[in-house]
């Protein structure tokens, strides 16, 4: 099957450091792909390059056959992007923000109303629909950002820590929604720190460390490679990122306070 997203030899350099270093990956359509990695490992940079929000230094990226740096608008039409920190016009209400996004994306009026109302109900933000976005809690703002990114029924959903700040009910609904998108042949790629989410939702996982993918595959394959068939994703993650034995660090930390 042809990959929905294909990345080859991707480099991204900021001043004197590489955020991404010879990165290769393929994401198939109809799959949920999780990107895991510690802070500063390059997850956000990768997702932004895929979403045509950032230029790469070198290498190639293909999103449904399109190069995001050459066909920015076409790629943005395909993608629904949820940023790590929800960025919206805070002086608008969620309702006004959805209308603006729908107008810019040129979505049919009848479809918009139905989609907005069903998502607003499902994520439980009906009573905040007329408030300033700036006055909402982080979690509610995250829900508004998620709804806005899904309004055009995107072919590819890119979520950068999309589950951050969500209550368990909303997280469960979002997981189900992501699954249903994948079943309809769409591609979901998201980064997360929450190993349980990655383990329960993702078909494939890539572990990113210092700008490189240190391992990728299904959960079973990762377990097989780590040599511990009974281990969970957190243990595999810590082992592959060289943080398996944290005891000396924790010990030294405790000592620094005792002294």
């Amino acid at each position, binding site marked *: 099957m042809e990959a929905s997203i294909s990345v080859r030899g991707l480099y991204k350099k*900021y*001043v*004197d*450091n*590489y*955020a991404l270093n010879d990165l290769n990956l393929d994401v198939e359509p109809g799959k949920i792909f999780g990107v895991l990695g510690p*802070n*500063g*490992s*390059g997850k*956000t*940079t990768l997702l*932004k390059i895929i*979403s045509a*929000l950032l*230029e790469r230094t070198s290498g190639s990226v293909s999103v449904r056959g399109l190069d995001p740096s050459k066909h*920015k*608008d*076409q790629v*943005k*039409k395909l*993608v629904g*992007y949820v*940023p790590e920190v929800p*960025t*919206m*016009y*805070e*002086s*608008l209400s969620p309702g006004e*923000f959805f209308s*603006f*996004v729908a*107008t*810019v*994306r040129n979505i049919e009026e009848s479809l918009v109303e139905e989609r907005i109302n069903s998502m607003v109900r499902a994520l439980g933000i009906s009573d905040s629909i007329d*408030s*300033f976005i*700036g*006055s909402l809690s982080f979690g509610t703002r995250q829900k508004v950002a998620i709804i806005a*990114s899904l309004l055009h029924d995107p072919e590819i959903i890119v979520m950068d820590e999309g589950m951050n700040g969500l209550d368990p009910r909303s997280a469960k609904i979002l997981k189900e929604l992501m699954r249903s998108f994948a079943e309809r042949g769409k591609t979901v790629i998201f980064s997360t720190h929450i190993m349980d989410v990655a383990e329960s939702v993702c078909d494939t996982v890539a572990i990113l460390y*210092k*700008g490189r993918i240190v391992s990728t595959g299904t959960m079973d394959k990762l377990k097989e490679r780590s040599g511990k068939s009974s281990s969970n994703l957190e243990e595999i993650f810590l082992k592959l990122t060289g943080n398996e034995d944290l005891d000396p660090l924790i010990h030294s930390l405790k000592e620094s306070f005792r002294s």
Partner: protein
Amino acid sequence: MNSSVLFLARMLMIEQRYQAIKKSPKYTSEVDQKTTRKKLGNFLKVSYAANSISFAVFSFLLITPYIFTGGDAGRITNIGFIVYIYALIISIYSSALFFNSLGTMNLLGPVSPLPYEGRKKAVMFSWFIYNGSSAIFAVLPAVVWIAWSTGNPAVLFFGIIWGILLIMAGFTIGSLINAFISGNGRGEKAGFMSTMKSTIRVIIILFVFAIFEIGIYLPGLIPNFIPGIAFPLNRFLPLVNIPYVVFLGNQTLHGLVTDAASSILYLAAFSILAVATNSFAVERSVLLGKSEEIFRPEKFVNYRRGSLPASLIMKEVRIVARKSQNVILLFIPVIFVFPTILSVLVYGSEGGIGNLGTYFSLISILVICSSFYSLILMVSEGSGIETLFSLPISVKDIIYSKSAFGLLVFSIIIIPVSLLIIGGNYGTSTYDILVPANLILGFSFSSIFNIRRLLLRLPAESTNVNFYSFGGGLFIAAMFVVTAAIVLIPVILSVLFTIALTGSLQSNPYIFYLLDSSLNFAALLGVIFMTGNTVKT
């Protein structure tokens, strides 16, 4: 015109205001949200009207001496030049600050993931409709007066066209300046070098401006140089052609056609430039302005314990100097007052009060810097104010550290400026040192007074501080008036005492300076005593 472009253009302005007020306690309650929505809608109109009126008043004050003394070609040239340069400078600064706000508040972030090219148009329209176009009021009083006094309606037509042209030029220059000073930002490390880079970039720009302004107002340059340029060069030479095209050239058909040709040529050139630089500035400063966290090799902190005052002053230096927009704000008062001072020196010193005239005109810098810096030094705290209030630091320490940093910047500006102007115009004497000394004393006591006042006005539970945290425009205007009053009291008393003691101010300036120094010093001791007893509740 696409309605979403106009919607976004309006939103970019509304959002800036909302971001500034959203954390103020009075706007966070549910009840006030409806009122706030209404207020935000009115904000654009009120702010535009206030800008227009202030520009028109300032421009009118600038041309008043010429209205009463008659209008030969040389004098008309002066007015034309000064008001148009004033409009250009206003546009440059408002454009630079507008792009700066777009970048720092990430105002195009929400539309970045959307397939929407209209964002670039929206940025340009937003600035022009809600901000930049008000600069036309800086030229209108002169244009209307000359059109009326000469009975030539073409002056009105060309006057407005060239006003718009210079506003567009200001937009272009301002957007480029911002792109230059904001740098790329990606992956830059916080440290001495980044502070230095940012400061050097800003100083280079301000230096260029200072030279530019001094050049324009240099004594004798305008009346001697500009009216002597030959036709048709005088219609096409950038900037110096404005007095000819607008005021002096179009009384004949031949002149009218040449002026129209020059106007069309520049209109096309400036439009292309404005569109191109807007696109570049949006891409560089706004869309690509955010840095990412990336992996770096492990490093350790070298902690060195310093004294509390030194570490507080270093904190001020860092939070102000590492943000280009703060550095620019520190220099804005000087750049704005410069034309007035030079105008006073060139045209207003005929009364013959020697370097006292210079001292009085430099007091305007003192008043503006003291009020403006006090505000900037408070606002630069941003959300850091919550941390500052949570630490065991006395109000006195906060006031002195902020005043000390303000004083440092003010001294760097005022010492060379006052000595150069006095030395250049009147020759040097021992008493010249008293001019900057008095200005520094005046700044010291007024800035301590202002910062104390602002700090006491801020609720202890504040989580953020911005220009609107202190009660809005009316309070800020009142602060300027109060600063002017407290700074002028010692000056007025010294003038009165000098006249009472010696019978003449002009012949005994040193008596005046010594009296003023003593009174300023007494005022400084007074505010130090007041600050020592300040407790924030």
